[in-house]
């Protein structure tokens, strides 16, 4: 009788397991594929906030790379960035959430500026809650581009350089969706309610 009871329990457990796993796997997929929110390029308040963070040299375009150390997508972008030099005529700033001295030092050596921030600071100073986010300001401080680096999730073509050069050439660029990780606590609790991602 006891064995039969355990088996019945096991059969129920299998049902629960199937439902649970279905949800978990679906959820994991969603967490990858969800297009994360970011401030709109035509948001004047956000433009103003960014203006305050850039240098006084108004002749230059300013490019912000918001990268999160705990986000695989961000690390992929960082690897890509440190393999090139900043685009001529641009000031490129890596706003790095977390710590990765080796990579950030490499970036500095290449001519990038690095600003280490905490998730809270990121939201407070930049108004950004998700990474990796590319934001390009023209010399006037207007947001020329804000969004992701690729056309789709984990897209092999990282388009930051192309976007920057296009903007420098005076062309308009359509914003790309932001795929990556939530950084702020609020956004994390929204897109990762199970706390599976760090």
């Amino acid at each position, binding site marked *: 009788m006891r064995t039969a009871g*355990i*088996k*019945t*329990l*096991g*059969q129920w*457990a*299998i049902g629960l*397991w*199937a439902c*649970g*796993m*279905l*949800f*978990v*796997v*679906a*959820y*994991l*997929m*969603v967490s*990858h*594929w*969800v*297009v994360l929110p970011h401030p709109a390029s035509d948001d004047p308040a956000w433009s103003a906030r960014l203006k305050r963070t850039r240098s006084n040299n108004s002749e230059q375009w300013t490019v912000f790379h918001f990268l999160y150390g705990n986000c*695989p*997508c961000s*690390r*992929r972008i960082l690897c890509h960035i440190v393999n090139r030099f900043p685009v001529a005529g641009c000031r490129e700033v890596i706003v790095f959430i977390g710590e990765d001295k080796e990579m950030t030092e490499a970036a500095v050596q290449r001519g990038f500026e690095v600003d280490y921030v905490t998730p809270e600071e990121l939201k407070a100073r930049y108004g950004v809650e998700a990474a990796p986010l590319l934001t390009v300001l023209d010399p006037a401080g207007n947001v020329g581009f804000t969004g992701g680096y690729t*056309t*789709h*999730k*984990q897209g*092999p073509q990282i388009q930051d350089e192309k976007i920057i050069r296009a903007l420098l050439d005076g062309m308009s660029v359509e914003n790309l*969706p932001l*795929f990556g990780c939530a950084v702020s606590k609020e956004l994390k609790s929204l897109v990762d309610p199970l706390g*599976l*991602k*760090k």
Partner: protein
Amino acid sequence: MCCFKRTQVAGRSIGVKEVIKYLINYLVLPTVRSEFEESYLSRMNNIAAWFFAAHLPVFVLIAFMNGTGPVLACALTTATLLGPFLAILCLPSKRAISMVMGVTAMFMGGLLVHIGQGPIQIEMHFYFFVLLALLAVFANPMVIIAAAVTAALHHALLWLILPASVFNYDAPFWVVAVHAAFVVLESIAACFIARSFFDNVIGLETIVAQRTVEAQARSREMRRLLDVVQDGFFTIDQQGVISEERSSATDRLLGGLKPNWTLPEVLREHDPSAADWLELGLEDVFACILPLEVTLAQLPARVQIGTRTLSIGYCPVMNGTVVTELAVTIGDVTAEVDREWLEIENREMLAMIERIGNDRDGTIEFLREGDELIASLRDDSQSDLTVTKRFIHTLKGNCSMFGLQRVSQTCHEIEGCLSDSDESPRDLVWSKLFDGWSAARAMAQKLVKDDEVGIVLDDAEITSLLINVLKNESTANIATRLAGWRLEATSVRLDRIAEHAKRLAGRLGKGSIDIHIEHGGLRIEAKYWASFWSAIIHVVRNAIDHGIETVDERIAKGKSPNGALRIKTAIEAERFVVSIADDGRGIDWERVRLAAEQHGQSVETRQDLFNAIFKDGVTTAPLVTDTSGRGVGMSAIRQATQQLGGEISIHTRANQGSEFCFEFPLAAMAPETNSLFSRYGIKKAFGLAVSDLSVPPLEIGNGGNSPIATLAT
């Protein structure tokens, strides 16, 4: 929609319901599960579980390399592994466990896509398609369906949670359709493979089992049919192995049969010689060298199992010209045999009654001599096989002459054993002989008493003697007449021999033979001549069996269709002569020579040839029959002749006949009476009686007047 509701397939109208029913029957396996399927699925489920378990380190490594959290990958993979292992532990159905494996495969795919985040994320999707195909190894379409449904639910859930998640690049509907179509197509193909795998491999045992059940049902029907009949039916192969398919009567008749027992093995327990006979015979039958009718006829047709007599029939089962099996029928013919024996017993009884009526003294003498022979055969101290053979042969001849067929047959059987192996046959056969004789003796006892031997005289003889006395005949003459009463007329013996010869000729297909008796009115002292008369039967039997030709043969030779035999007792040249002459083919001396040489006899002179005829075991007969052919009888007559101080001569000519002459001193005819008379001064050789013989002489070719040889005594 109407066109989908009912469509024409091969001239038959098929509705949607039927299609659905067919699909369900195709996808859902039959409920019957074979042991092989259970064993196979058990093995495959275990392999699958450990295959998924092996994902754990791989997924951790991938997560580590892609920075997607090895610890999380480890935890999630472990959670996914819970399903299959729980299923193995808790689910009673192996097929259900397989379905859990299908679901697990999709979960593992989902995990891989998650932890494999990177440029090759799309390649990680291949896992789904590969696993979907691999699931066909479970030989169960429902495993594929379970996996496909899991993938579909997964995508549906994704879509519910995040409508743009599945196709995050704004894919049009047709892309979605293509995406789904690949999964559906692969699922259909995998289902087809799985079902085919089941039908042709995994489920084959079930099909075979079903067919076996059907075959067994048919077999039971057949067996029921076979069981109705009282005969045993079965087949045997070349080794004699008895088929499992047989009628129940087989087991009843042959006793409890063990699996793979051979018929010779079964017979050996009851009748070893029949078993050997069968073993050798089977080799010949299956060798197919000799004609089948010949080899089959050589197999034992009757065996004795305990108290039962069984008849065995054989029918070849042919494959082309090759004998593959023998269909064997066994019947219990005990009652038939008993009836036959009873009939024989009745015949014997009638023959005995007739014999006693005709020749009472002869019958008593026969019984007494038979008793002596049986006593000698019972005597364990008598170990000379030659003597035993002679006794048996004599008993056989006597019994045959007196119509005791059963004892005669048993003697023949014993002779066969003695001749084949030169060893005394089994006690069982001896018992049969002794019991047979006892039965015959008891039967005879009812009809005649041994101590009833006396002299029967008719009135004429008494009157004649009385007149002689009244006429004051000499004492010598009266004594002679009185003594003559006590002697036995040779005519009695010759009549007996003639009667036996006629019966024998009829039995051997020699037609009706003409027998001429010349007794010469002689009388002799019976007790001295009993063994001689017994032995001379062998000469008569040889003459009928080998000397006289068949009717056809005689006609072909221009002879009279009926053979002729002359039996004679006479006084010739102061010698008492007994002769047996036939008008048959004569003795083939060349064959005698060959037969003698085969027995290591040196044959250089005519005397050697003559001696060879009387040598134990030497025979010119091509076949041994129950009448003659063993080379024992002539040896017996020689011994009997020698004991009476006689000589044997043979006159023979090819295709004209043979005559065996046995010559004795006159004194040998009645030695006791002669001795008595001589003590009283009467010089009279008894045996001679004056009688006019009117029997015409038989024309016997004798190669001239001189015998070919004479046996010196």
